[in-house]
């Protein structure tokens, strides 16, 4: 038995066979003089391109498998790779001092890593690891070494390594990670971040000796007290199992709070639901305690194709999502594409102002068939579902009336054909164009609900292109002009007995909770990971107090004032 003490980096307790990870690293670098520095510089540029492509691929994979925060690490790596100062140093070494590319890269990055290691702040100090990771990748690209595991992780294991870089960890089959244990690294290292996002224990800075441990040794990893035991005695294993059972029960309790309804202290109930863009998102939404889906984006059914997806395949996908939601409400937004995408079979062409052009519901005058086709698929798929259909980009009453006509036509035709169709259907629209917000009173009689898309509402109200970096800072949904439009929408909708949701990023921000509650919002729709936190925040407010907050915010003159005010209300 071997026992080591390390630093706990991710809570929980794990036990299982040890698996010692030896990564493929760059080979030794020798310093040489080159005869053709220009050719060497070209060789470096080719390696840079390769490294950039690898990092982009890793970023995408991580975004899909783990999450946004972890994917951002690879974006930071690309920024390091393209750093102007680093590049200058490398260029000088090659072109002025005739050094080989490997040596130029190694000296430059080693110097930077050493400088980071000398810093006092633990976070900045830990970035030495990123610098080394980028350097190693670039060297491997120069040396023609393939990235990849020397051997695959064959069974669920406690992973033992000297150090784990993001490039290492992203290659592991995450379902087989029982815990992470590294000789280096601190509580803010990537090992710790990864372990916490996967919900597995981790212990770092463990002074183990590779001669004393081997693959498949039963190992206990305690992420609470930082203890690692290789080859424990039987009674110790029993204790660990008991501890793990307790820990899981605790986690379960936390998870069950996710599923508790969101009601304010004074008993006002609102719905907290998810924004999804596909089947996987729907699963995640249910897992995080969503009470339904407030926005199902359907564009993925239409992009990267040459003709409409056939009806059966559309129905299959909708049904799949409805099955996952298991009776929870599902708001499906009909096709929302415009001239920023080129989709010839839909008749979309490049436009000078695609966000002010032929997009969303505006397509129905020319192409009612596209909407009719989507209505048909939804009605046939939603037989036992709580289906809510929502039109995007509405700016006036006419297009909603026309859409309802098309909807009624499709419904009558299917009924006449004796088909089983959805019986419980609500018909609603998005409020993302200021004119629609101001006309809520006229729209309310012909719809069942509204959902406010604050990202676009902000862009259209403030005349700011969100994708233009030079002005994007102006695009705050906290701007009182945007808030007033939200307030008008909710007030007018409620007067007509219609409910209102909000599916922009604003709904997922804890800071916005009292503001939106106080304005009377009925449904909050957000990215799934935000759900437990927003529910928790809602439970901490009373509707009466939230109303005061909303009134106060609505009386302010700028988004900065509103943001500072709302921030001052956040706990601690």
């Amino acid at each position: 038995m071997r026992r080591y003490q390390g630093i706990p980096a991710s809570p929980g307790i794990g036990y299982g066979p040890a698996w010692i990870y030896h990564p493929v690293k760059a080979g030794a670098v020798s310093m040489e003089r080159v005869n053709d520095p220009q050719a060497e510089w070209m060789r470096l540029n080719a390696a840079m391109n390769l490294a950039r492509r690898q990092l982009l691929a890793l970023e995408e994979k991580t975004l899909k498998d783990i999450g946004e925060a972890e994917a951002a690490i690879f974006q930071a790596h690309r920024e390091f790779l393209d750093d102007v100062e680093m590049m200058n140093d490398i260029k000088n070494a090659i072109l002025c001092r005739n050094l080989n590319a490997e040596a130029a890269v190694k000296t430059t990055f080693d110097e930077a890593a050493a400088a980071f290691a000398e810093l006092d702040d633990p976070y900045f100090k830990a970035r030495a690891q990123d610098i080394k990771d980028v350097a190693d990748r670039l060297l491997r690209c120069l040396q023609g070494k393939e990235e990849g595991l020397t051997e695959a992780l064959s069974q669920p294991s406690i992973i033992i390594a000297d150090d784990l870089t993001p490039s290492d960890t992203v290659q592991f089959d995450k379902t087989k990670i029982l815990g992470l244990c590294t000789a280096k690294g601190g509580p803010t290292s990537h090992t710790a971040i990864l372990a916490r996002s996967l919900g597995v224990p981790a212990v770092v800075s463990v002074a183990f000796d590779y001669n004393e441990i081997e693959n498949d040794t039963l190992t206990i990893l305690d992420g609470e007290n930082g203890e690692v035991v290789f080859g424990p005695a039987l009674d110790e294993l029993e204790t660990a199992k008991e501890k793990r059972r307790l820990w899981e029960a605790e986690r379960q309790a936390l998870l069950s709070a996710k599923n508790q309804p969101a009601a304010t202290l004074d008993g006002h109930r609102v719905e907290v639901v998810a924004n999804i863009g596909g089947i996987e998102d729907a699963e995640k939404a249910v897992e995080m305690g969503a009470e339904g889906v407030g926005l199902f984006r359907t564009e993925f059914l239409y992009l990267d194709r040459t003709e409409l997806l056939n009806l059966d395949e559309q129905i299959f996908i909708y049904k799949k999502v409805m099955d996952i939601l298991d009776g929870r409400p599902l708001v499906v937004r009909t096709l929302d594409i415009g001239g920023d995408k080129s989709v010839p079979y839909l008749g979309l062409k490049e436009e000078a102002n695609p966000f002010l052009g032929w997009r969303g519901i505006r397509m129905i005058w020319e192409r009612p068939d596209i909407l009719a086709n989507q209505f048909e698929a939804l009605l046939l798929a939603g037989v036992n579902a709580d289906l809510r259909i929502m039109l995007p980009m509405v700016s006036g009453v006419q297009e909603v009336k026309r859409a309802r006509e098309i909807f009624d036509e499709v419904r009558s035709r299917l009924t006449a054909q004796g088909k089983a169709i959805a019986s419980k259907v609500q018909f609603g629209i998005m409020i993302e164009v200021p004119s629609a917000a101001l006309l809520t009173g006229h729209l309310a009689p012909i719809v069942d609900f509204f959902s406010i898309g604050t990202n676009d509402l902000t862009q259209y109200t403030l005349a700011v292109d969100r994708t233009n970096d030079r002005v994007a800072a102006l695009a705050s949904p906290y701007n009182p002009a945007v808030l007033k439009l939200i307030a008008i929408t909710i007030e007018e909708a409620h007067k007509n007995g219609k409910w209102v949701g909000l599916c922009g990023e604003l709904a997922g921000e804890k800071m916005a909770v009292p503001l939106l509650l106080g304005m009377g919002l009925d449904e909050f729709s957000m990215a799934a990971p935000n759900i437990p936190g927003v529910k928790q925040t809602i439970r901490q407010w009373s509707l009466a107090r939230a109303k005061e907050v909303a009134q106060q915010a609505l009386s302010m003159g700028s988004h900065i004032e509103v943001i500072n005010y709302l921030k001052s209300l956040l706990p601690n």
Partner: protein
Amino acid sequence: MPEISLTIQHDAGLHARPLAQFVKTVKLYNADVQVYNISTGKGPANGASPVKLMLLSVTKGQTIRIVSEGPDSQQVLDALERLIQNNFSSEE
């Protein structure tokens, strides 16, 4: 050469997203930007280099001095001032 001194209020200090936004802003303008960490005496660092800026290890509450030179020297300072005074909130 115009210059400006500002205190970083973002919880993260000058790294991660705030750092990326800082560098992005600098690169929009035709100006040479040098940054000093007044609170620790570190610097100068090239405002377009994430690596050098990180080495200033600017944490919450520290003050930086930004000096710029070139055709857009005033514009870049104005843009950085807005960014920092809005507490890097453009992407919220």
